């Protein structure tokens, strides 16, 4: 990104001191050494998960243990599918995480659009309320939330997982930032003169402009919901309503010492996200970095 300016730098820089080093200096060998070590650190536990889920327990519990994949993958996977309703769990997780992602994308762009571009009474104080709600650690209120679900008769149902996750203060904040930079007032006025209603401006102009930011928001929401554990653990009871995380826990409980089954389940539950990550990982990296700018 700064390659152009840096290639010009040697001409103008004062003698000896490479003052643009922080941005485009010579990359030392130890930079790569540390970065490769960090890649190893990030990837090894996942690799180990794969190793254990492809070996029988004897191979993993010898000294020294094997660190190579074996041929036992399908045997263990089959055991996973017969011990817990794993396919059903995967489907449940897709339903829950998918619904939350879509709902967050829609609700956040709508509210973000209102806060960024519409004039209405109480707009600024209400937006401050949204920002404050971002700081509330709602995880600590699980006991009353459980009572609410009990009153709604939603215990042990997927909507108990979906509905509380649909609204996101962060999402509103995020979409508002994007909409206020992308959508200019001239465009809005032109649309108004052409007779567009507010809804049409949102749907035909605003949403298409921020589609990719909304997609990143949806991705982060999907990953968070897919990996959620405490709330499903509290509110879900019967195995047919398990999410994948609960299914893994069920595998672990029955075979605590033998990690093979739980590891196989963990690996199978992580694969969908890894596949997703191969396609959209760059977007997620950009999203995380973009969020930092605004946070």
């Amino acid at each position, binding site marked *: 990104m700064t390659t152009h300016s840096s290639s010009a730098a040697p001409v103008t820089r004062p003698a000896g001191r490479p*003052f643009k080093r*922080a941005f485009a200096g010579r990359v030392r060998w130890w930079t790569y050494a540390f970065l490769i070590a960090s890649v190893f650190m990030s990837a090894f536990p996942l690799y180990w*998960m794969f190793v254990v889920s492809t070996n029988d327990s004897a191979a993993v519990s010898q000294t020294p243990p094997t660190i190579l994949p074996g041929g036992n993958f399908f045997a263990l996977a089959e055991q996973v599918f017969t011990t817990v309703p794993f396919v059903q769990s995967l489907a449940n997780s897709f339903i829950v995480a998918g619904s939350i992602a879509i709902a967050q994308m829609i609700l956040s762009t709508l509210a973000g659009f209102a806060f960024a571009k519409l004039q209405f009474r109480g707009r600024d104080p209400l937006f401050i309320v949204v920002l404050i709600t971002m700081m509330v*650690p709602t995880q*600590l209120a699980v*006991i009353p939330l459980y009572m609410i679900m009990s009153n709604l008769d939603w215990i042990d149902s997927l909507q108990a997982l979906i509905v509380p996750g649909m609204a996101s203060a962060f999402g509103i904040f995020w979409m508002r930032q994007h909409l206020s930079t992308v959508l200019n007032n001239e465009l809005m006025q032109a649309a108004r003169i052409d007779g567009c209603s507010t809804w049409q401006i949102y749907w035909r102009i605003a949403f298409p402009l921020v589609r990719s930011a909304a997609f990143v928001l949806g991705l982060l929401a999907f990953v968070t919901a897919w990996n959620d554990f405490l709330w499903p653990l509290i509110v879900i009871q019967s195995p047919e309503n398990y999410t994948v995380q609960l299914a893994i826990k069920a595998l672990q409980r029955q075979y605590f010492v033998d990690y093979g089954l739980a590891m196989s389940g*963990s690996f199978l539950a992580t694969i969908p996200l890894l596949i997703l990550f191969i396609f959209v990982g760059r977007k997620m990296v950009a999203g*995380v970095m973009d969020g930092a700018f605004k946070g």
Partner: protein
Amino acid sequence: MVLSAPPRSSPARQRTKSAAPQPRRRIKSASRMDAFAPYMYIAPFFALFAVFGLFPTVFTFYVALFDWNPIGGQTFIGFENFVTLYGDERFWNAMRNTFSIWILSTVPQLLLALFLAQLLNNARLKFANLFRMTMLVPYITSVVATTIVFASLFGRDYGLINSFLNLFGIESIDFAANTFASHIMVSTMVLWRWFGYNTLIYLAALQAIPKDVYEAAAIDGAGGFKQFIFVTIPSLRPVIIFTVIVSTIGGLQIFTEPLLLSSPGLTGGAGRQFQTLSLFMYEQGFGDFKFGYGSAVGVTLFGLIVVFSVINYLLSRRITSDE
């Protein structure tokens, strides 16, 4: 209720009235629906948050005042839950564990992230995207999967880490049994999941520092290390505060790792050596069905998070303004 706008100041109202309001109003009222549209767009968030966020949070404070059993009914007992809680050795034990794990995971994690971000912040770096992407892989791995993998790696008998230590003649450590070792184990899991995320956040902030600031520092004779101390760190101040606050909020709520490590129990090890406050809350609320007592833990945690967020903020502001 949330939608009712606060009363507008009267000068604003008079201004609209005096400036020939009638014709303009007419045109606008052609689409009266549009006047309500903004409220319709923000209503779903406020409705959902009111029911599933605000109400439970406020209600926690209320439930904490009761001896509340989901089956047996509830009796108002005032602050008795809090009095019992603050005299409960299990609570203080969970508090110590939580802080120990929080510090062991947050401090090395953020330092590592800062270091890696500094390495990544170089336009001539090759494979930059590959490095960034692999660092985010732990973030998409669930805490449940993370815990199971690391429990295996840290295993007493066949764990890879102990096998590695044995190579150097160090005897195997029973990580789960020893208090400090178990905190290292849990902290490693937290660190692994979040260091890449924080690296990317720091990297974004580093890239936002204008180049001429470094140029000016270089002209004044500041070398790489001085630039880092006097330019980089102060410029990163808001982001560092942000990450410290987020890590604090997350660190005080660590739950899944100790729960799975103590499975099928809820005590965080036989001697409660790695039970955190969140797990203690869960144990009281959903293990023993003491909703009131569990809520008292929740309220205390809530207070701690608020206090620490404020302290973090004030402290980091003072440190950097001193410079």
